[in-house]
């Protein structure tokens, strides 16, 4: 087990190295002078020179890359050009809203998707199943911003249950925080639940057809006990996998949701950085997101061993 984790971490090193190369060379893929690209169309020659020096663009690509990688490895994420602040500080400021949104989304998605997927599987082929799965396909056919605007229109504008936009930190009051985060989590959670419900239904249908489910029925257990103790546990591995793999989609969803609901999170930080051509932020954040993705998938592989005693590394 420990050996497996070490092996997986070692395997992640080449992947992260490639991510680093891709992320770092983004700026160099564009033809032209890197410093003037960063400075944008309206910059004076002095600005361009200042940026060139500040980012070390006067040095060779390899030297720059080496300095960046060693800096990242040492925990120095670089310094924002636009804000003139360390990326680490900016990131910490924006972490709260994004974590609230991400965990809230997964919570909403699982709460909706597991029962929906199970009911659909139990009544597979019947009307309930078809209706649920149609809703599911509709769910992931809508971009998050569409769902977001529908929710804002209904619950914030018509019913006035929630603020229309904005984010309130937990420190300013739990209730206020919850109200500000509820709709964004619902919007993104609905889209995600569509995905998870689909895979839940598929796996549960498969598990329900297995012999040991018949054994459980032969023991006279109630359908709820059979669903929770026997079926869901066996369906858990594919469901957890989907949740892990869709982390990349979650990041994408978070970016858009933060934009729709005007939440000052990491997604907005990166999008703003991209439009401001603030390369230190872009590079650092893309690398961190990729690292988190690999980490989450490693954690999920470890969770497998807790769920299924047959899986051993």
């Amino acid at each position, binding site marked *: 087990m420990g050996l497996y984790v070490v092996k997986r971490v070692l395997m992640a090193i080449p992947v992260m190295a490639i991510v680093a190369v891709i992320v770092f060379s983004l700026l160099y893929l564009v033809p032209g002078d890197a410093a003037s690209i960063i400075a944008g169309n309206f910059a004076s020659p002095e600005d361009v020179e200042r940026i060139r020096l500040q980012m070390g663009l006067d040095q060779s690509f390899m030297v720059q890359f080496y300095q960046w990688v060693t800096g990242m490895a040492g925990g120095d994420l670089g310094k924002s050009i636009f804000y003139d602040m360390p990326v680490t500080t900016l990131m910490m400021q924006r972490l709260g809203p994004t974590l609230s949104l991400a965990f809230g989304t997964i919570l909403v998605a699982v709460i909706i998707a597991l029962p929906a997927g199970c009911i659909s599987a139990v009544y597979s082929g019947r009307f309930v199943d078809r209706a649920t799965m149609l809703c599911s396909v509709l769910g992931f056919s809508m971009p998050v911003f569409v769902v977001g605007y529908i929710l804002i229109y209904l619950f914030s504008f018509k019913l006035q249950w929630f603020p229309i936009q904005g984010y309130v930190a937990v420190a300013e009051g739990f209730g206020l925080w919850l109200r500000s985060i509820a709709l964004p989590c619902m919007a993104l959670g609905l889209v995600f639940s569509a995905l998870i419900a689909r895979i839940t239904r598929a796996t549960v249908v498969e598990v329900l057809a297995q012999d*040991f489910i*018949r054994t459980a029925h*032969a*023991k006279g257990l109630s359908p709820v006990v059979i669903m929770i103790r026997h079926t869901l546990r066996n369906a858990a591995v594919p469901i957890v996998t989907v949740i892990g793999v869709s982390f990349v989609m979650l990041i994408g969803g978070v970016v858009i949701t933060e934009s729709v609901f005007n939440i000052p999170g990491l997604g907005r930080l990166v999008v703003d950085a991209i439009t401001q051509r603030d390369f230190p932020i872009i590079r650092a954040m893309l690398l961190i997101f990729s690292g988190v993705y690999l980490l989450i998938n490693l954690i999920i592989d470890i969770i497998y061993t807790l769920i299924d*005693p047959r899986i051993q590394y």
Partner: protein
Amino acid sequence: MQPPQGGKKEMSGDPSERGTILDIDGLKVSFRSKGRIVHAVNNVSFRLRKGETLCLVGESGCGKSVTALSVMGLLPRPPASFDHGQILFEGRDILSLSEKEMRALRGDRMAMIFQSPATSLNPLLTIGRQITEGLEKHQRLSRREATRSAMDFLAKVRIPDPKRVMNQFPHELSGGMCQRIMIAVALSSRPDLLIADEPTTALDVTIQAQILSILSEMQTESGTALLMITHDLGVVAEIADRVSVMYAGSIVEDAHVESLFTHPAHPYTIGLMRSMPQLHTAGVDGGQSRRRLDEIRGVVPHLSRIPAGCLFAPRCHWAVHRCREEAPPLTRVGEDHRAACWEAKKVQESIYV
């Protein structure tokens, strides 16, 4: 550890009914899917007494498993539907019971073991948990009492080191061990009826004998009635008191085990016997009487369209004109012996097994 409801044997009033655990009368089961109807069971009747072993014999798809699952109430409705007949379990018609009432019986008064032990156990739960969950539900035992009881049963089915096995998972055990555990699960509630659906088919021949001896030992000890489903006449000879032979959803012959083997009265039964390899005959005469293993020629009719007459007629050497016109009823052909064949007497006389 007595079952909570006492005196269940004395419940039925009619003296001739005394001791009857299971009485199936004229059962017809069909399956509907995509506008097609398959008549899986047509007119099955038999009776099982306390402590008795009845073997239901026939080839795959003849409706024996459907019959067993009907008794357990494990057929999903739809697609299954019970068109005719009744299943009396200890005098109660279980087809009219609610799902909740059936759940109270299943795993308590009646239990079942299945063909493939490895897949019939939940791979993610410990062996111990899979035995205790039933005990906790039906006998309302505490976790600790249930664990102790489960360990007793593991010892009874000759599991070495029950304490260790309690914490193991199915994939760590052999098929034979798993089937013993299935028996322990089934018998732990001391049921009145145990249904075993081909319990030895998926196992090695050497393990088969062990499982059969454990089954009959446990049965003698607890007085449980056993409904054994098999296609293996060797198993029948080993364990059965009575035998019902099924073909294409109907019972074609029904007899005491000795009578069946000595005076088979249905051509299908004879076909089954002939298609069974017999080691001893070949060995004793030094291979002289070694004969070709006979197969039953032809195929089973498709059960979505039942033709007129005897269903076995197209495959039968003895078939006469009448067989293709009129289906033969199950009639008495000897002491405790019935067969559904117009030519039964002739068949019986012409055969030396």
